[in-house]
């Protein structure tokens, strides 16, 4: 029966206002709420729904991150993943490193499907899914907003700039989840209790034969340029007047 691998990244919660450290070495993370990357939550939800429809048997949540990322994996288990793998690594993870790691795990587990978020809301890179598909030499269907099984192929609707594109991919395949694929479920208290008993294996990059190094390094962080504070107008007439004066309409 089919296995599904889901990538789960630990990121600063999307509600947190991001602040760059004054010394330009990163963003403030002390005392900041961490969560599962929202797109990965959607990826996991899709896998859960497939299992509930009998289209998959086992769901494995994988995270590359620090020890504390066990929290996010426990959340994934509480949502319904069957087991979890933490690939321990402190510090930033280049998407190519993430893809190599998922590739190493895919070779061990032989999943029918790997689902990851279309991007992580920290580095906004949007690379891990397609990179994994390249290394694995398998199809990719990115920005998915609908996924349906048709025998051993998947019919995927993708949100592209032009509108909605439909592609057909053979299994095994890599899917990246977009926002409108589904709405993830809330975790209930009894599920959190149950999740504590589910298996969570801890390994590291070296054990999987993956080198954490990357030729690309962030050397400086800075806040973005701020926009000038604008003016308020009192009514429609004043607005239209101002736009006309500025030559904007």
């Amino acid at each position, binding site marked *: 029966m089919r296995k599904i691998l889901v990538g789960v990244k630990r990121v600063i919660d999307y509600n947190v206002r991001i602040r760059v450290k004054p010394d330009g070495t990163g963003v403030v993370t002390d005392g900041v709420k961490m969560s599962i990357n929202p797109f990965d939550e959607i990826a996991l939800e899709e896998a859960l729904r497939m299992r509930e429809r009998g289209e998959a048997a086992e769901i494995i949540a994988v995270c590359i991150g620090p020890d504390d990322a066990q929290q996010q994996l426990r959340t994934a288990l509480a949502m319904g993943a069957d087991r979890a793998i933490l690939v321990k690594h402190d510090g930033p993870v280049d998407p190519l490193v993430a893809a190599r790691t998922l590739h190493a795990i895919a070779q061990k587990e032989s999943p029918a499907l790997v689902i990851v978020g279309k991007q992580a809301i920290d580095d906004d890179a949007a690379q891990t899914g397609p990179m994994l598909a390249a290394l694995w030499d398998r199809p990719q269907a990115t920005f998915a907003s609908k996924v349906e099984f048709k025998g051993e192929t998947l019919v995927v609707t993708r949100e592209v700039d032009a509108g909605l594109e439909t592609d057909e991919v053979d299994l095994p395949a890599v899917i990246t989840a977009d926002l409108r694929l589904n709405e993830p479920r809330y975790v209930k208290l009894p599920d959190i209790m149950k999740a504590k008993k589910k298996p969570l294996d801890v390994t590291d990059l070296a054990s999987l034969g993956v080198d954490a190094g990357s030729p690309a390094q962030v*050397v400086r962080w800075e806040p973005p340029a701020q926009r000038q504070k604008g003016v*308020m107008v009192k*009514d429609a007439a004043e*607005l239209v007047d101002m736009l006309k004066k500025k030559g904007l309409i």
Partner: protein
Amino acid sequence: MNKVLVIAEHAGGSLNPATAKCVTCAASVPDAEVTVAVFAADGAGVAAQAAALKGVAKVLLVENAANAQPLAAVLAPQVVKVAAGHGYVFGPSTTFGRDLMPRVAALLGVPQLSDVMAVESATRFKRPVYAGNAITTVEVAPGSVIACTVRVASYESAPAGGNATVEKLAVDVPLPSHTRFVTVSAAKSDRPDLQTAPRVVSGGRALGSAENFEIIYRLAAKLNAGVGASRAAVDAGYAPNEMQVGQTGKIIAPELYVAIGISGAIQHVTGIKDARTIVAINKDPEAPIFEIADIGLVGDLFTLLPEIERLI
């Protein structure tokens, strides 16, 4: 010479405007020689359009029936072949480029820099992270091929006036059949394209229904503007997905952006930070959109829009 290969995006025989912006970014690499690669079933027209861009030294045209649709799994191995000998491979940060370029980078065995907004040197680039709330400077070790997607909103289009040679290339590489294009449902409209329109009018959750969203289209028509929407408006079905503006939608840089009934969540604002003038109309004077708007108007959109329409 730094040889930069730009992967052209095109559809229906037309070069996507994002490619001209990529060319500008590519040309800003010190000592750049810019080559544009066109992968198509029948691409002479597109190649000619690319050759007419100023700053392009050469256009490579790879024609193959399998290239009729831009499937990343089919294009990537061909791009890798054509990229041999180039130090840089660039594509646009549109859904085309975001789908294809990481697959190319992984086959090349190099990391990718997404959404490059500035080239600081031959090995140093700036790119936004955290929905544009931080800007990073990335240094790439010498000797590695540099693969990038270009944040098109950060660049002007390369002007016309180029006269590059077009060279046809046969690329001999096995192509997969595991990925098949079925269809694309692109809504046909004669409205200006959201990503390149000088003026954009956007509506949010406040519109309340697809019927009410018509007043956004009406105002846009009056202004000859493209139409955008917030995620909330798209999720609720008031507007189609291709209109979403923001971190996970389109990043745009029009001369004029009018946000109507949009609160101004960071994920939305990141899509419009480069707009020249932002106008916000919202009934809540505390709405965060007013923190970044150049011109703000507090009031009910359903009374204000008809008035504005009348006045212009």
